[in-house]
């Protein structure tokens, strides 16, 4: 969805003039609700958030006590061990999970596009994880990975491998969360890739087969290059979602052990809500949003560069 903004406002094909409605009242009435919602619930709270980040807020009996702190909170960010752990873990998590999902999703999409029976069935099964609440996925895998009775430890026990405390061991906790996220979101990548593969022009493949291309050549020289736009979109889309990760971490590990799975959303949650440090938490929020805007600008200018070449 993120990539549509450019094409959305694109002109109708040259020469075709779109008939347009002239009634300004209707134009405003139709746009009004969305505009109002975005202003009242989108813009206003964020302005308020920036304001809050310059203060300390203490609640006493329903009224707030505001103490001006200037840029103190922003100064504190760099020395907060949770914030730095959160940033590092979020990046590792996002890249690890998204790359895994892209590769697996692509392979699955290719395979499903090759079979002629059971496509609908496989697709239905593969969609399932997308529809399950993140928190339930956390609950499912908290049980699956449980040290004492989890199915994973039972399964590797059959192979003669001793049980492992997947979520309790700092060495495997983040990896486990990544694997759970791959389980959760590979289906989404699969869906987008399948839609992309199905819309590829069939005659190109026919021509390559006539020219004697091997399946391997066909894959690397035709399918992958043609799929680059879809891959880029899926990558960007998933990366943005991965940076937001919260639900699964909340249930699986709570950021632990230590700071092994501390992701930035969780840091923010702890500082703002658990410790009730509203002013400092607001500063973390603002910093995160600022970072996202930077990413967006970087992404868009890279796209523009790519187009220009």
């Amino acid at each position, binding site marked *: 969805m993120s990539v*549509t903004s450019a094409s*959305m*406002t694109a002109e109708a094909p040259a020469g075709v003039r779109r*008939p*347009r*409605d002239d009634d300004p009242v*209707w*134009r405003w*009435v*139709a*746009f009004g*609700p969305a*505009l109002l*919602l*975005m202003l009242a619930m*989108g*813009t206003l*709270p964020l302005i*308020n*958030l920036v304001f*809050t980040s310059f203060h300390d807020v203490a609640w006493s009996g329903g009224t707030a006590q505001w103490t001006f702190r200037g840029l103190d909170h922003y100064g504190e960010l760099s020395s907060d061990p949770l914030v730095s752990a959160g940033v590092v873990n979020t990046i590792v998590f996002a890249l690890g999970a998204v790359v895994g999902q892209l590769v697996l999703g692509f*392979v699955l999409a290719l*395979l499903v596009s090759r079979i002629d029976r059971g496509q*609908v069935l496989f697709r*239905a*099964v*593969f*969609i399932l994880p997308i*529809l*399950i*609440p*993140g*928190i*339930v996925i956390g*609950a*499912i*895998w908290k*049980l699956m990975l449980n040290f*004492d*009775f989890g199915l994973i430890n039972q399964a590797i026990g059959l192979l003669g491998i001793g049980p492992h405390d997947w979520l309790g061991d700092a060495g495997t906790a983040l990896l486990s969360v990544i694997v759970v996220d791959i*389980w959760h979101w590979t289906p989404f990548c699969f*869906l*987008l890739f399948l*839609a992309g593969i199905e819309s590829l022009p069939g005659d190109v493949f026919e021509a390559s087969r006539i020219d004697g291309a091997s399946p391997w050549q066909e894959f690397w020289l035709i399918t992958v290059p043609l799929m680059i736009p879809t891959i880029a*979109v899926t990558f960007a889309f998933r990366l*943005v979602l991965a*940076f*937001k990760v*919260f*639900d699964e971490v909340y*249930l699986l590990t709570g950021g632990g052990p230590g700071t092994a799975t501390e992701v930035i959303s*969780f840091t923010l949650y702890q500082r*703002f*809500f658990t410790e009730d440090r*509203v002013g400092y938490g*607001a500063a973390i929020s603002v910093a*995160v*949003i600022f970072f*996202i805007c930077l*990413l967006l600008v970087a992404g868009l200018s890279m796209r523009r560069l790519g187009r220009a070449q």
Partner: protein
Amino acid sequence: MTQTSRGRAIAYVVLTVVAVAIVIPVLWIIAAGFRTQISLLMGDVLFTPVLRNFQEVLFSKGSDFLDNYRNSIIVGGLSTAICVLAGTLAAWSLERLRWPRWVAHVFLAWALVFQMIPPVALASAWFTMERAMQLDNTFIGLILAHATLNLPMAVWLMAVFVRDVPDELVEAARIDGASGPTLFTRIVLPIIAPGLAATTVLCFVFSWNEFAVALNLTNKGTATVPVAIAKFAQDFEIQYTQMAAAAALSILPALVLLLIGQRYIVKGLTTGAIK
């Protein structure tokens, strides 16, 4: 065996393995809901199913799960209605009515940035504001939050569908004297109905699944299903089997939607990103 049929056989094997890997955890948690705590802890493979966990979760005095379920339906239903209504109208207005270019650009850019903000950051912003307005812990506060959270997606999706409405049809309707709201409800809505269905299903599912915001903007009386499930996992002594039963109950709507509306879900998920 020819090369293609061997390749196809391998494809089936791999796909089946993946399908099993997806289904097993879900089935296992549902099965855990029918176990006794002891049977789960002992890791018995075979067990006699019991209904006690579901009875406890749904009907015991100490459990609010039915209330949570009702809350989720209220919040999901109303936020979806607001979101789809506002999103569809805005998409039509921005896409097909006479706005200066920059209006659509600015709005969509802002929606794009908004879409990228972590829900917890938004929750912190909403919490501060709603607390000052005494809207925290109310249905209205959470409904507005969820509607806003899904609005960018709704506008984008509906914009794609609205763009596909043929010009000739709109022009013909206009010549027949229809304009503004009449044209929109009589001519446009029926054409974009499939897109509307896709957007509605997705908005509802995302609201139903949403946790980070609901966790921080609700209290005991307004908590939704995901918040309740998180509570199960945090009790001093975790009732694993009850948590499993609650989890199984929470994915029921998703399963129903998957069975009756798979087409719309696929359409919604792929349209938004690809087009």
